[in-house]
């Protein structure tokens, strides 16, 4: 049989830890075609690839809902934890405290975070736990046939004609007020902005909260919905043009002098923001909250990095947890020192 000599394969593109983009993929999505969540999964794959994240160091944590299923669709080689509804923030806290070497990537939805899990959400923001917290925000409960969630806009209408009569919870405003140190909003359809914000979030050392508007194509993508592709495209007001520069790449982002701000991230990476609005300072909580309130009143959806603080101590710093992961301490160090136990016994006498 004649054999045809194959031309030598082109060297595969790999990142700095020697992995290909395919190594960051997950299972095939079972979500609806066109679901915003799938686009977010793709950006997570790209961001982790570009940063050279070691997948086995990542814990993907989620709650319940369409959003919370999505961790199955990226980073196949990472640990996953599908918790019960609304409880991902505390599971993530326990995980990170037990093993600080783990990079916690939380994926939640608007129902999971703003409704049933709001108590957990606000307290996670307060803790400034080192983790990425993504809300895949479609304003409705897709998995149970599209009922309103607590981020649905006032006056927003369901396909069935039901009108939402309560104001939405702005998870970004809450996160800023409560102490999260990296707070941004993006749109699942804005590839460039979402990727840069995700990359910044992954290297941040505190709670990085990203609210990503992610239309539900089945239940909430129609006229009357403020979380539809068309509404968001028409009303999206990017705050700035965001570029992320990893610490291991010496790239200069070219913006006209005086129009951009550079933010140094803890690992040496940089976020470069090209101002689209005049003089917005992402280090000011007051400005961030004013911006969110004003744009909300105008019916605009502002996207971009609202707030960042690279100085505030995170939860691990505050708790004085030992440097090595508690989960892998040898038995000799798991037991308290004999002297400590003797002191306890003496105090009982």
């Amino acid at each position: 049989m004649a054999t045809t000599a194959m031309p030598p394969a082109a060297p595969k593109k790999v990142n700095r830890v020697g992995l290909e983009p395919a190594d960051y993929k997950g299972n095939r999505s079972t979500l609806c075609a066109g679901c915003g969540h799938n686009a977010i999964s793709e950006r997570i794959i790209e961001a982790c690839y570009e940063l050279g994240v070691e997948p086995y160091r990542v814990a993907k944590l989620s709650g319940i809902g369409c959003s919370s299923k999505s961790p199955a669709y990226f980073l196949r080689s990472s640990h996953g934890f599908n918790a019960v509804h609304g409880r991902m923030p505390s599971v993530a806290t326990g995980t990170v405290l037990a093993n600080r070497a783990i990079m916690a990537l939380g994926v939640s939805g608007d129902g999971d975070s703003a409704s049933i899990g709001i108590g957990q959400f606000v307290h996670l923001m307060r803790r400034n736990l080192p983790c990425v917290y993504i809300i895949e925000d479609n304003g409705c409960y897709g998995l149970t046939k599209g009922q309103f969630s607590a981020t649905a806009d006032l006056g927003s209408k369901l396909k069935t004609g039901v009108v939402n009569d309560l104001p939405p919870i702005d998870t970004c405003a809450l996160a800023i007020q409560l102490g999260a140190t990296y707070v941004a909003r993006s749109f699942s359809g804005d590839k460039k902005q979402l990727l840069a914000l995700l990359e910044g979030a992954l290297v941040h050392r505190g709670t990085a909260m990203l609210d990503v508007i992610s239309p539900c194509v089945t239940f909430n993508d129609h006229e009357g919905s403020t979380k539809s592709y068309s509404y968001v495209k028409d009303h999206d007001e990017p705050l700035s043009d965001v570029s992320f520069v990893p610490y291991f790449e010496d790239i200069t982002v070219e913006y006209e002098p005086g129009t951009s701000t550079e933010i140094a991230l803890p690992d040496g990476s940089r976020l470069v923001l090209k101002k689209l609005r005049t003089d917005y300072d992402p280090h000011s909580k007051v400005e961030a909250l004013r911006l969110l309130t004003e744009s909300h009143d105008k019916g605009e959806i502002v996207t971009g990095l609202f707030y960042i603080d690279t100085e505030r101590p995170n939860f691990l710093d505050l708790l004085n947890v030992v440097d090595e992961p508690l989960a892998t301490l040898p038995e000799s160090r798991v037991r308290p020192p004999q002297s400590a136990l003797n002191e306890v016994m003496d105090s009982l006498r």
Partner: protein
Amino acid sequence: MAREFTIGIGGAAGDGLDKSGDTLAKSVSRRGLHVCAYNSYQSVIRGGHIWLRVRISEQKVYSHGDRLHLLIALNQDSVERHAPEVEPGGAVLYNSDRFSCDASLLGDGVVPLPLPVKEITKDLGRLLPIMQNTVALGAVVFLARLDFDSMAGVLADTFKHKGQAVIDQNVKILQAGFDYAKERFVPLAKEAWNFSGMRRPFATGNELFALGAVAAGCKFYSAYPMTPASSVLHWMASHGERCGLVVKQCEDELAVVNMAIGAGQAGVRAMCATSGGGFALMTEAIGMAGMIETPVVVVEVQRGGPSTGIPTKTEQGDLNQVYGASQGDFPRVIIAPTDTTDCYWATVESFNLAEKYQLPVLIISDLLLSEHPETIEPDALRHDVPIERGELVNEWPEGNGPYKRYACTPSGVSPRALPGTAGTEYVSATDEHDEEGFTISDVFTSPPVRRKIMEKRMKKMEGVIRELAPPKLEGPEDAPVTLIGWGSTCGVIREARALLAAQGIQSNHLHIKYIHPFHAEDVTAILKKCKILIGVEVNYSAQFARYLRAETGITVHESILKYDGEPFEPRIIAEEAKRILAGRPINLDVTKEDAREMAYHYVRTHLADADRPAEIELADGNSHGESLWRVQLVDRASGEVRGELKIGVKTGSIYAWEPLTAART
């Protein structure tokens, strides 16, 4: 008969009773005597009625008992309510500057011992009101023939952080109380104690849950404050840094248990503790731990329910809840420790079971067991406890093929890899999943996979039960009556049996520590040979008796139940057992003592605490359709009759308050 002496201290919250009780107890435990104490308190910061009993004995005692030799009354209320309980030969010690002790309240052979605190301490500088307790303790040292230096030593330790001047002042006050008593009173204790000199630790169940956890290598403790579990949190918070564990007070119990599970999943030994209301919030997550096979230890310290109930009172009413926690069938262990020392060892065992079998272990305690302090044997708590982590996968070489987190094995236990172990990545899904962790709940579904994975999880229970020591019958096998208890009542049942034996009634005792899995075969074999079976439980509906029937098909003949918030005392169980043996039906009528307590409640809620009950007599009910207790109320200060309260003997309803004179102005 071993010598023993019980001292009661009655007062209001804020009077510093617990501190005084501690001082008293430690002063004797340091000399080698045994102590068992119980504090009956209320959910208020100041006021209310606090009643603390300290039982001192030369031999080990298993409950706070039901006797009273000396009452220290810190207010009028305590004199009135507890003076009648003092045994002949006993005494009532009270601050005579502040109130009086009406001789009519005292039984025969009980003497009032007034302490004019102001006069006694007039040369000792300005005193805080709380220091009246120290004067009384000085007198107690003399009356009960305790060791003055030992008590002075406890005070020195207590006030060490406040400096020598404060220590000196307190010791002088103690001395003044002792000297005053020595001049005027005679000792109540007949003979000197035989002090062994062995310093015995004095601890509560909650302290030993915490200490047991720390010794077992627990590195994560989360909690939300809830009586009567809070003292575990307090202990952990004050010892956490020294013992190297993370202690986190959370926003609610949902966060508490989920955090502990998150930590357990990542590989540290994690525990949390709560009471019934908090546990109700935790139940969904406990099922999650069962489903994703994550070790976690949860302590449920029961208090009086339902709902908010009686937060500072004891009960065993949460058995149904703990047993029924969370939806679906999942493997879990329920352990009910039987005494204070057992709180330590049950915790150590719980961590080992949780990790070896990768499941939630629920420890069910109650206010009595968790909060009452008692002396324990100095060598009862070893620190080099076994730490068995079960099958762990520390590395997974590439040639091994895919790692299956939930591998179906003959034992049902799947070797566990911790997140962060390269090559072992998996998803812990609360949805049903296959061996590798792939969910079978959405696009993929498979009834046989579901069946086999459920069987795999439940199979672990067979391994668990083989590890647990089956219960044993205590006492003569052929005794005419068997008392059956679970958890905290072990000691009091043992003492009730001694009381019965002293009256010529033989009995034996089966006590259950491992609630689930249950030793059904062993228990059935034991009980089949027993005669009259009596369940003893601190709840209304005999929850354990129902469970016993479900597990063994054996029905107890009768149950002795208590649900008034106070723990059993030996005499109550012995008397009820005798009633049952005599074939008499249970009598739930309001007793004369009950009527008196109910009158106090009425006085407090309606009459501004100005009156107290005096004469009480039984009368016909006339229009009320039941007999009545007619309780005469008199003015607390003058003794003048104020009127009469009518209380239904059957229903306990307060039918009428009939004042004799016009309302006070």
